[in-house]
């Protein structure tokens, strides 16, 4: 099995008490990768990360080294590294674990990334609700500064870097990279039209890279253990260790570090201990709320970017939500649609109006007031939103609604013909 020889790295230090402190982090090899990185040229680091095959762990799966490579070399402008710790996708709770249990791992990855792109300043943008984690990160920054890992002439090199916390104030859209940048500038988190991409015109109009927490946490290990090690884990083009966050109807919910490409069924049955009471799996949202639902008979597939795209869904953040047979799929769709309606920033009409419309139609069907043509309208709205908005939130809202309506069409129709929720009193009520 894939997992037989796999040794966790991202969660390794977390097993020790006080794993969030510099002392414990250093005792287990912490900041050795930073010292190694500073012995190399920035381009060498970018090359290593490219070769490792690391793809962004925040949902989109874009190759990290390629993103870093887009930052212009010859520019007079300052460059910025922004850490996306705005973890708000329903189902995702893995970045929070890193911030809580191993903030120095994140800082070390952030520093190496900053060095690679030539940034002298990094911001950690964390969602406002994670006040505890923000305090832990603030403390970790102070510890790292005192030890000479942050500040001027880091480890005797000619490179200097500051790391500053930025605590958000409640808005899922700020996890979208240009929404995050707008928010960092002290504005509404309204995503920007692209191009230009942040790598060229980002924070304060300067070249900027925005990376997810888990993505950056992988970087010290790539530097230390080599890109060959990283790329040897998991399927081709989908390499590396992964933090899977498992929630919903499982006996052991939580974060599991396993190779990319592990079978979704194995994740649920073996690592998550199966469904309580041995009930059947009815549906799984494989990677966070924006990823189309899979039916219980579709979960024998590898958890990686390409496999889930081929299966008509998305890997997203790799954080499955498991639903057993007591769950009403119309209500699950409505809860998801309500989320996106609530979080739409309001800039683009298809998303602003479409998300609310989908939510209302789903509620109509769920409460027994729906007609068959509502189902057609629902699917038509998803087509109207998809591809017609500035950022991916529109798509992220359209895909799950379409997924639920197509994968569980019979159940939707049953609501309409019976004029009620056949599962009234189910797990979501």
């Amino acid at each position: 099995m894939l997992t037989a020889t796999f040794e966790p790295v991202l969660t390794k230090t977390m097993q020790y008490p006080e794993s969030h402190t510099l002392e414990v982090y250093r005792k287990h090899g912490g900041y050795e990768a930073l010292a190694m990185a500073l012995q190399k040229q920035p381009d060498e680091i970018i090359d290593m990360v490219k070769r490792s095959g690391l793809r962004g762990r925040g949902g989109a799966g874009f190759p990290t080294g390629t993103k870093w490579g887009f930052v212009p070399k010859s520019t007079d402008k300052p460059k910025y590294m922004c850490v996306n710790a705005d973890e708000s996708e329903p189902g995702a709770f893995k970045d929070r674990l890193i911030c809580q249990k191993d903030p120095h791992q994140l800082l070390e990855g952030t520093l190496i990334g900053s060095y690679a792109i030539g940034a002298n300043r990094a911001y950690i943008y964390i969602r406002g609700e994670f006040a505890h984690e923000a305090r832990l990160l603030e403390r970790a920054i102070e510890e790292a500064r005192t030890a000479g890992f942050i500040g001027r002439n880091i480890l005797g090199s000619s490179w200097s870097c500051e790391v500053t916390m930025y605590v958000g104030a409640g808005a899922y859209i700020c996890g979208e990279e240009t929404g995050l940048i707008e928010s960092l500038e002290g504005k509404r988190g309204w995503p920007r039209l692209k191009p230009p991409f942040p790598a060229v015109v980002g924070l304060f109009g300067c070249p900027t890279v925005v990376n997810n927490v888990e993505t950056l946490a992988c970087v010290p290990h790539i530097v230390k253990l080599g890109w060959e090690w990283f790329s040897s884990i998991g399927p081709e083009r989908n390499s590396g260790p992964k933090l899977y966050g498992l929630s919903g109807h499982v006996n052991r919910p939580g974060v599991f570090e396993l190779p990319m490409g592990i079978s979704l069924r194995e994740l649920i049955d073996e690592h998550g201990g199966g469904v309580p009471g041995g009930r059947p799996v009815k549906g799984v949202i494989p990677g966070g709320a924006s990823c189309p639902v899979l039916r219980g008979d579709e979960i024998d597939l590898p958890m990686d970017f390409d496999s889930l795209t081929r299966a008509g869904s998305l890997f997203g953040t790799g954080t499955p939500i498991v639903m057993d047979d007591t769950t009403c799929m119309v209500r699950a769709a409505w809860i998801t649609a309500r989320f996106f309606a609530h979080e739409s920033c309001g800039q683009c009409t298809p998303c602003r109006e479409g998300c609310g419309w989908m939510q209302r139609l789903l509620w109509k069907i769920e409460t027994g007031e729906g007609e068959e043509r509502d189902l057609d309208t629902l699917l038509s709205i998803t087509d109207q939103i998809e591809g017609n908005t500035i950022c991916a939130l529109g798509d992220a809202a359209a895909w799950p609604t379409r997924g639920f309506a197509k994968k569980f069409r019979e159940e939707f129709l049953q609501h309409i013909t019976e004029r009620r929720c056949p599962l009234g009193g189910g797990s979501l009520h």
Partner: protein
Amino acid sequence: MLSPEARQRIESLKTVYETNQSALIPALHVAQADQGWLSEETQREVASILGLTAQAVRQVVTFYTMFQQKPVGRHLIQVCRNLSCSLLGGQKLQKQIQDKLGLEDGETTQDGRFTYLSVECLGSCGTAPVLMVNDRYYENVTPQQVDRLLEELK
């Protein structure tokens, strides 16, 4: 009026962040911690310290859900209403709290003790159901714990 300490802290944020506007969200957090919520007067004070227009501040205050535009109780209870929590009893938890406190979503008890809000995903799905009281998380919450918690919070 903001306390002198809060004013001082907001002043000092100007040196932490690269532009006065980029210090706005951190400044609003300071102001809200000081005043409990962000009245128009408080918003104008923040605008004046940072040299921003009142409109620039208002735009931000009205966009982010954590910025309170009316007074809230001493204990702001926020319960997650999203999927993972709902699958494990989150809806029942919401009803239990609302019934016990007699509050609709967004309301505050007359004695100013509690404000109740149902909120979107709090990023703690593995320990569902989850609620927050002020800035503290309560995870794997049971109905019994909620009863006890509401008694304890004075």
